[in-house]
C-alpha cells in the first residue's frame, strides 16, 4: 500500500498526479513527493522498522513506491561508526562517520537513490533506464539495471577518471561519453529525455529518485539510538542529498519517531566548485553558477539544481557552508584513511576537510556530536592520490634485505 498522495511543486504548490514528470509545467519548479504522514504514523514505528531487513527498504512507507521493492534489496543500512581517532585528531569530543563507502552493490550512496528510481521505473512500465552521471550514479544504474533486466543508456563527461569508466563498462550498458563537462552532459540529457520514452533516473524520475537519499538520514537517526546528532556535514554537488537529509529529520519528527530537531546541517564543497557554500557565506539565496575546476569530480556541478533549497535548509537549521582546496581534499582523504581505516573518494575528502575547517573556525563546537557523511569509495578515484601517498619499501627476497629496511623504518620512527 502506498502513502504517496501525489506530486507538488516546491515553488508554486501546484499539485500533480504520480507520473514520470519532474518539473512544474507552470513555473519549472521541482516537484516533490507528498505523503500521507497521518497514515504513515499509524504503521511505521521504531519497533516495526527494527524488525525489518537491514536495507534501505526498512523505511519503505516513507519512500515513493506503490508495490513491493524490486531493485536494490540489499542496498543501504551502511555502518555509522564512532570515529574516536579522527575526533582526537580534530580536537572534538564525539565524531561519527556515516560510511556509504561500503554500500551494496556499487560502493556509493547512489545505490540508495537508484534502488528507489529503478523500482519506480518498473512500476511506470519503462524498459529502458538512463542517467547523466559524474561516475557513481553511472555505476549504480549500470549494475542495478543489469540485475533488474533494464536496457541502459549511461551519459558521462568524457574526461572522467579511467577507473570510473571501467567500473561502468563492466556491466555492459550503452555508455555514451560526451565531449563536455557535467553541466553540458545534463543539458544534453534533458533534451534527449524530451525525445525518448526512457526512465532518466535524475530527470523524469527525479522526484522519486531523490527520495532515496532520505534513507541516509533515517539511518543516521536510527543508528544513533533514535535521536538526531548536533551537527551533520554533507557534501554538496546539486545540493540534493543535503536537502533530503534535512527532509529525513523533519519526517521522523512529523511521524513521531523523534521529538525534536535541533540538528545543524553544514554544506561542504570544493573551492573549485562552490556555488552553494559561497551563497551561504554571502548570505544570499541566489546561486551563481560557476565553471567547475576541482579534483572532486563527483561534486563538480557548477549549476546546482537544488542549490537554492540546500541553502535554505542550511540556514533554517543554523548551519553553515565551507569550501576546501584540492590539497586540503587530498590531505583529508589520507587523514580519514590513517585514523579510521576508511578510504573515501574525493567527495569524502571534501567533507572531512570542511569539517576540520568548521571546527577550527568554531562553527562546530568541540563539545558537540557531529556526523560526517562519507558518500563514496576511494577505490573508484585512485588517480586523485597518484604521487600523493607514501611509497613502498623495495627489497630483495632475503631476510638480510628485509632487516636492513626494518632498521631504517625503526630509525625513522624514533
Amino acid at each position, binding site marked *: 500500500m502506498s502513502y504517496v498522495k501525489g506530486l507538488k511543486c516546491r515553488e508554486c504548490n501546484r499539485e500533480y498526479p504520480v507520473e514520470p514528470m519532474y*518539473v512544474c509545467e507552470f513555473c519549472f519548479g521541482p516537484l516533490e513527493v507528498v505523503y500521507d504522514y497521518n497514515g504513515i504514523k499509524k504503521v511505521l514505528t521504531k519497533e516495526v522498522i527494527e524488525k525489518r531487513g537491514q536495507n534501505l527498504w526498512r523505511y519503505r512507507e516513507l519512500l515513493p513506491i506503490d508495490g513491493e521493492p524490486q531493485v536494490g534489496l540489499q542496498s543501504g543500512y551502511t555502518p555509522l561508526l564512532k570515529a574516536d581517532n579522527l575526533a582526537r585528531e580534530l580536537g572534538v569530543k564525539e565524531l561519527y562517520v556515516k560510511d556509504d563507502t561500503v554500500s551494496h552493490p556499487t560502493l556509493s550512496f547512489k545505490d540508495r537513490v537508484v534502488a528507489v528510481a529503478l523500482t519506480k521505473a518498473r512500476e511506470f512500465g519503462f524498459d529502458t533506464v538512463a*542517467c547523466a552521471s559524474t561516475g557513481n*550514479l553511472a555505476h549504480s544504474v549500470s549494475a542495478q539495471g543489469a540485475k533488474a533486466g533494464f536496457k541502459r543508456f549511461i551519459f558521462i563527461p568524457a574526461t572522467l577518471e579511467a577507473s570510473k569508466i571501467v567500473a561502468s563498462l563492466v556491466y555492459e550498458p550503452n555508455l555514451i561519453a560526451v565531449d563536455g563537462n557535467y553541466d553540458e552532459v545534463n*543539458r544534453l540529457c534533458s533534451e534527449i529525455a524530451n525525445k525518448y520514452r526512457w526512465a532518466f533516473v535524475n530527470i523524469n524520475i527525479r522526484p522519486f529518485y*531523490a527520495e532515496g537519499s532520505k534513507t541516509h538520514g533515517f539511518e543516521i537517526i536510527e543508528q544513533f539510538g533514535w535521536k538526531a546528532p548536533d551537527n551533520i556535514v554533507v557534501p554538496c554537488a546539486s545540493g540534493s542529498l543535503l536537502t533530503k537529509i534535512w527532509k529525513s529529520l523533519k519526517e521522523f519528527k512529523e511521524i513521531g519517531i523523534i521529538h525534536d530537531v535541533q540538528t545543524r546541517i553544514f554544506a561542504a564543497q570544493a573551492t573549485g566548485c562552490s556555488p552553494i557554500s559561497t551563497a551561504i557565506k554571502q548570505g544570499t539565496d541566489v546561486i*551563481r553558477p560557476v*565553471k567547475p575546476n576541482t579534483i572532486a569530480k563527483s561534486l563538480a556541478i557548477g549549476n546546482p539544481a537544488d542549490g537554492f533549497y540546500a541553502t535554505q535548509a542550511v540556514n533554517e537549521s543554523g548551519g553553515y557552508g565551507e569550501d576546501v582546496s584540492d590539497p586540503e581534499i587530498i590531505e583529508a582523504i589520507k587523514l580519514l584513511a590513517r585514523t579510521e581505516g576508511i578510504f573515501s573518494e574525493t*567527495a569524502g575528502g571534501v567533507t572531512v576537510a570542511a569539517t576540520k575547517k568548521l571546527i577550527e573556525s568554531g562553527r562546530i563546537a568541540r563539545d558537540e556530536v557531529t556526523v560526517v557523511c562519507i558518500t563514496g569509495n576511494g577505490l573508484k578515484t585512485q588517480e586523485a592520490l597518484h604521487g600523493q601517498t607514501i611509497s613502498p619499501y623495495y627489497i630483495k627476497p632475503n631476510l638480510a634485505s628485509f632487516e636492513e629496511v626494518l632498521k631504517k623504518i625503526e630509525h625513522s620512527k624514533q
Partner: protein
Amino acid sequence: MAVKVRIPAPLQRLTQGLGEVETGPGTIIDLVNDLDKRFPGIGERISEAGKIRRFVNIYVNEEDIRFLKAEESEVKDGDEVSIVPAIAGGC
C-alpha cells in the same frame, strides 16, 4: 536565417507540440517576449517581471546565459537557444 529555439517538453503544449521554433535576433528578453506573442502564456512560464525564473536555464550556443549577460545577452541570426529546466545529479 533566424534564431533557432529549442522548446522543452513541459512547454510544448503551448507551442502546438513544436520542439523547435524560430525567432528573430535581439536580447534574450526580446526573444521571450516574441515567443509570448506567438505562443501566449509561454512568457510567464519562463520569466517573471523581466527576469528568467530561478529553475529555468537558458543556453545560447551551449553557453549558460548567466555566464554571458543574463537576460540582456544578445542572440543573432544562426544562433541556437535552448530552454532547459534545472535537473539534479551528483550529491
